[in-house]
């Protein structure tokens, strides 16, 4: 043994021991901090995903696509999605009925790194379309003396307008032909024909001014002020759908004779259902087509070959002449002055629940989507996992 070898000490061992202990503690501390950070970040990401999903449902409802979602068949689904700097959301809109929809939303935070995996939360909202309460109870609802002359016809049997088979439900609900205050006020001359369930019925309570002026929470002035098209009154000729070569429907006040296309729901203006206000007496002649809701401050006179699908509300009287007038939906004529009204010629007024309903549901001004009152919101992550 050399002299040097014989020296013994414990400083090195002590230092190594202390370093090992400190190393273990430091590693444990780092591990603890890392775990805590991961839990905190995971919690934050889950919370963000939840609010992204909620933001998705709110955005879809605030920017409700009436045409797209309204044209879905029952239980069919359309998807809307968007991304933000924080993550993505995706909402499946399922149409359950014409008015009830289920919005299933997913909020997602993409995978950030190998440490932070993707996170998703799901929630649902049952929403309904709230509309103005405009729902004709008969093919023709009116007051005062009404003559059905010539070959004019009024039918309360629920009909699907020609070409609308794909957009109307199968269920039909027949209504009365003419709803009025006194059945003796309805006269028939010549081959004038009225049918329905029943043919003519008396309103109970009787029809009054309010019946033709107040529609749920909307008054007549509310409705007319919301009109897409304002017309001063007078003679109106040749209302026809108008669209660009690219198939974009030209809508609104700039195109006052475009009242939509009732003949082809799949056409460019097939889903355009304007609210039209005639601020006076209207005389529609020389043919034309239209759909939506037609509001007339004064009298309305149809002079032939006018096809309209939807609801016509007239504060004055309602008269027809000539041939080819055909209304699918419902006509409500207040006839406040109790004038004698004459439906003559070959005019046909047929009740259509589908045409009436679509006229309201597909008008942006009259329809708002809202979560159903109470219990609309469901946290799907809690019931289906996620």
């Amino acid at each position, binding site marked *: 043994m050399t002299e040097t070898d014989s020296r013994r000490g*414990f400083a090195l061992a002590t230092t190594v021991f*202390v370093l090992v202990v400190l190393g273990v503690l430091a590693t444990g501390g780092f591990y603890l901090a890392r775990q*805590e950070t991961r839990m905190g970040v995971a919690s934050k990401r889950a919370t963000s995903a939840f609010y992204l999903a909620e933001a998705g449902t709110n955005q879809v409802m605030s920017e409700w696509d009436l045409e797209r979602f309204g044209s879905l068949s029952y239980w069919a689904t359309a998807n809307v999605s968007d991304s933000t700097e924080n993550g993505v959301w995706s909402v499946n809109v399922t149409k359950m009925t014409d008015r009830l929809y289920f919005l299933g939303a997913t909020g997602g935070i993409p995978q950030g790194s190998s440490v932070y995996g993707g996170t998703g939360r799901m929630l649902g909202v049952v929403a309904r379309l709230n509309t103005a309460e405009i729902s004709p109870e008969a093919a023709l609802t009116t007051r005062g003396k009404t003559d059905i002359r010539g070959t004019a016809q009024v039918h309360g049997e629920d009909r699907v307008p020609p070409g609308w088979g794909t957009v109307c439900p199968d269920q039909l609900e027949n209504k009365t032909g003419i709803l009025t205050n006194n059945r003796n006020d309805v006269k028939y001359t010549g081959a004038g024909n009225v049918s329905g369930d029943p043919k003519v019925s008396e309103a109970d309570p009787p029809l009054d001014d309010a019946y033709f002026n107040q529609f749920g929470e909307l008054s007549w002035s509310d409705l007319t002020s919301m009109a897409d098209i304002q017309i001063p009154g007078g003679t109106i000729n040749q209302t026809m759908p108008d669209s660009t070569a690219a198939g974009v429907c030209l809508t609104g006040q700039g195109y006052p004779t475009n009242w939509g296309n009732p003949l082809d729901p799949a056409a460019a203006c097939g889903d355009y259902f304007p609210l039209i206000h005639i601020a006076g007496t209207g005389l529609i002649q020389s043919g034309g087509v239209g759909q939506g809701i037609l509001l007339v401050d004064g009298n309305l006179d149809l002079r032939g070959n006018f096809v309209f699908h939807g609801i016509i509300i007239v504060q004055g009287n309602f008269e027809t002449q000539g041939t080819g007038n055909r209304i699918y939906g419902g006509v409500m004529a207040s006839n406040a002055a109790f004038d004698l009204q004459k439906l003559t010629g070959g005019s046909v007024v047929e009740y259509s629940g589908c045409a009436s309903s679509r006229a309201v549901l597909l008008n942006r001004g009259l329809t708002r989507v*809202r979560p159903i009152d109470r219990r*609309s919101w*469901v946290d799907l992550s809690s*019931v289906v996992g996620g």
Partner: protein
Amino acid sequence: MNAYGRRGFTLVELLVVLVLGTVLLLASYGILTTNTRVYAANSARAQGQQTLRGGIAVLSGELREISPREGDLIDMGAHSVTIRAQRTFGLACAVDYSSSPVKITAFRVGPAFAAGDSVFVFHDNEEDRARDDSWFGGVVTAVASNTDCAGATSQTLSVPFVSSTAAAVPPDSVRIGAPIRGFDEFTLGQYQIDGESYLGRREKGETPDPLVGPLLGSGGVAFRYLDNRGNVTTVDTLVSQIEVTLRYLSEMKNFQSEPISDSVVVRIFPRN
């Protein structure tokens, strides 16, 4: 080399080494114990925060979904709350009013419905009116699993409806698309379990199940019920936010020899 040639440490050297070694050891021990205490304190603090976070997540999930206006807040205590909480969810794809009780076939979104489940069913009444919409309660008397909802997983539920008011349940008022919600009634609150305080859940007549904890022994869970103006209310149907306070107290002590504690206050807004 002979024995006299070997050299050793002098007494002075030994004393110096011993003193220096002792100082080093004492310093190391100090660092070691300090680090150990810091580590333990941080562990306790992290555990406490995790406990609070978990508790808030549980309470948020349950309380967000209740409908105070529909009577889901059954009991509003300072340290507990009894609620009707959703357990499953479905959407009606067919309604058979010709049978008694009414049979509703539902596309199932959540866990399966079972006979004996309490449910709420949406009554649309007139389809074009929102003002007449309502919910009626009932207890499922029979269940049949099928794929009648367009081939999807579905169940047909027999549900005699129960009106919560004197008004009769209108016939033909449940329509396709109606949501159906299965619910349970239970209490969320502070419970002593195995000598420690926990946020727990207790179903009627059952012993409580611990959810998260342990928490501060007294006042570890506290609720306040606020209306839409943020004022405290005792009227269940006026509650629009529930303030939850969770407090955590560890057996560990910090450098001031005080127990490590933490707390969180959250206001939860029921969505329904």
